[in-house]
């Protein structure tokens, strides 16, 4: 019996009407990897993440997480197995206070089972906010948050389920350079694992979809490049930026 890959994706395809958004995508990643995923707008990056979390159903292909087949499972089951995601176009519960936004994640079966000595969901939610850096606004309505703070709220909600695999969809989008640095540092800290107050971090593996290449290259050790739903490159950041196909895909779009 060989070693089970942590996440294994084979032949994943998804078509929207006449558009092949994801075309025969396959890769696998290890438990401790941070994987970057780049590609021009409309390349299908968000769609790949949605297929992994079960928000969309693939037309064909398989996804295995820790040896378990997850295609066809409900999103909440997948999240409770240990995969959490953020949304590119943030989706907060606008009329709820920020703390309540995070409490929803803390009320998931997975989060309730963990953190043996913390049963108070509020306390745990507060520490997730603390980690994301918006605990001072815990009682504000989510509708009052700025773009950058909404990104942080997305992160807080995702980590509150204590995932082993974290899927981040453009976590630096709309952030200033200083904020981007801060967020990148938080990601690294999270990946190391440990306790942040009452919140426990498994040291999740990550897939980070991002446009800001320079920032991404500081965090990740491997990058996958998508174009028109097809993987056109997969390797270390250096290999990828020197790949002629990648350069063409980006130049064809006017560069990044």
């Amino acid at each position: 019996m060989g070693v089970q890959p942590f996440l294994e994706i084979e032949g994943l395809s998804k078509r929207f009407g006449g558009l092949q958004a994801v075309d025969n995508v396959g890769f696998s990643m290890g438990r401790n990897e941070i994987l970057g995923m780049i590609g021009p707008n409309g390349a299908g990056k968000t769609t790949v993440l949605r297929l992994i979390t079960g928000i969309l159903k693939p037309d064909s292909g398989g996804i295995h997480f820790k040896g378990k087949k997850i295609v066809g499972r409900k999103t909440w089951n997948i999240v409770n197995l240990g995969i959490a995601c953020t949304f590119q176009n943030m989706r907060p519960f606008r009329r709820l206070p920020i703390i309540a936004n995070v409490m929803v994640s803390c009320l998931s079966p997975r989060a309730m089972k963990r953190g043996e000595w913390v049963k108070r969901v509020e306390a745990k939610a507060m520490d997730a906010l603390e980690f994301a850096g918006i605990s001072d606004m815990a009682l504000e309505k989510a509708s009052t948050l700025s773009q950058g703070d909404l990104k942080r709220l997305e992160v807080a909600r995702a980590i509150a389920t204590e995932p082993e695999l974290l899927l981040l969809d453009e976590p630096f989008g709309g952030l200033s350079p200083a904020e981007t640095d801060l967020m990148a540092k938080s990601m690294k800290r999270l990946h190391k694992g440990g306790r942040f107050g009452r919140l426990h971090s498994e040291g999740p593996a990550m897939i980070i979809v991002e446009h800001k290449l320079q920032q991404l290259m500081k965090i990740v050790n491997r990058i996958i490049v998508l174009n028109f739903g097809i993987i056109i490159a997969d390797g270390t950041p250096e290999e990828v930026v020197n790949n002629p196909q990648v350069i063409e895909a980006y130049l064809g779009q006017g560069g990044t």
Partner: protein
Amino acid sequence: MGILGFYLRKLFNIVKREMLVLPSRIVVGLFFLVLLLLPVVTQDPYVLRILVLTSIFAILAASWDLLSGFTGQMNFGHALFFGVGAYTAALLNLHAHIPPWGSIPLGGLGAVLAGLIIGIPCLRLRGTYLALTTLAFPIILMGIVFAFSNITGGELGVSGLSRLSGSRLSDYYITVVVMLGLCTIMWKITDSNTGIIFHAIREDEVAVRAAGINTTRYKLLAFCLSGFFAGISGGLYAHFMRIAGPSTLEVSMSFTVVIWAIFGGIVTIYGPVGAVFILFPLLEFFRFWPEYRMLMFAVIVLLTLLYMPDGLFPWLRDKVETECPRCKIRNVATRKTCRVCTAPLD
């Protein structure tokens, strides 16, 4: 004596520090007191009868809010639960001779079952489709009622039920206490962690799923809870009127519930309850001018919603109370600083 004094002082302090600090809490306290003490002032059968019916419909309106206001599952067929509760209680009382204190909770359970049956097909539907589908269910049940008229009495309904209790006064106290109790429970539910998830489902169901929550289970839970409370109100209605007829299933019943709730302010529980206590007696009052009755009713509702889109009670509450910008605690509007964190209120 000393111990009694201690607890009395403690109670007095709680009332003073927790209740008398906010107009909305004072109003709720007065609402409880007035309803419970009213028979001391008057035992006029007409007044008691109106208040009993008002209480019954207050439960119904609040239970609609619990489902449609909180989880956003627009139910335009809430009469289904009311009717199922009424018919279940009536048939059990008439044929199995179960007394009201048993048949009414069983009517509630019957409505829970109805909640499951309509909840499951409704899980996949959203918006207009959900509204239209839910609208159809009470009509279907009405068809069944007419089809099996040897059991259900058809147009005449099931009549000859036991009285709710021995006297008008005890009828009044039973319904009022049940109403106050059930509405408090509903409010507590919405104030709990489950309530947060209900709220979140209304805002963005996909995001709730992505937080690891089984939204199907919570939506069904909302249908069942709402069904239970609405079923109880149907059972109370059947035993109070001593008849369960097809009028409990009418489309106009479903719509009236929605109007009450929206008028009072959805996602509050107290809004729909307050709305019924204003609109139901008002409609009775307009009985003196039967030709203008519905017209006046509609004008009042329309004007209110035009000027208070969030409903009457949230609007009133915002007039007399302000939220502290720092700690989000509510304060009387006349205060200059927050009563808890002393931040200035503007």
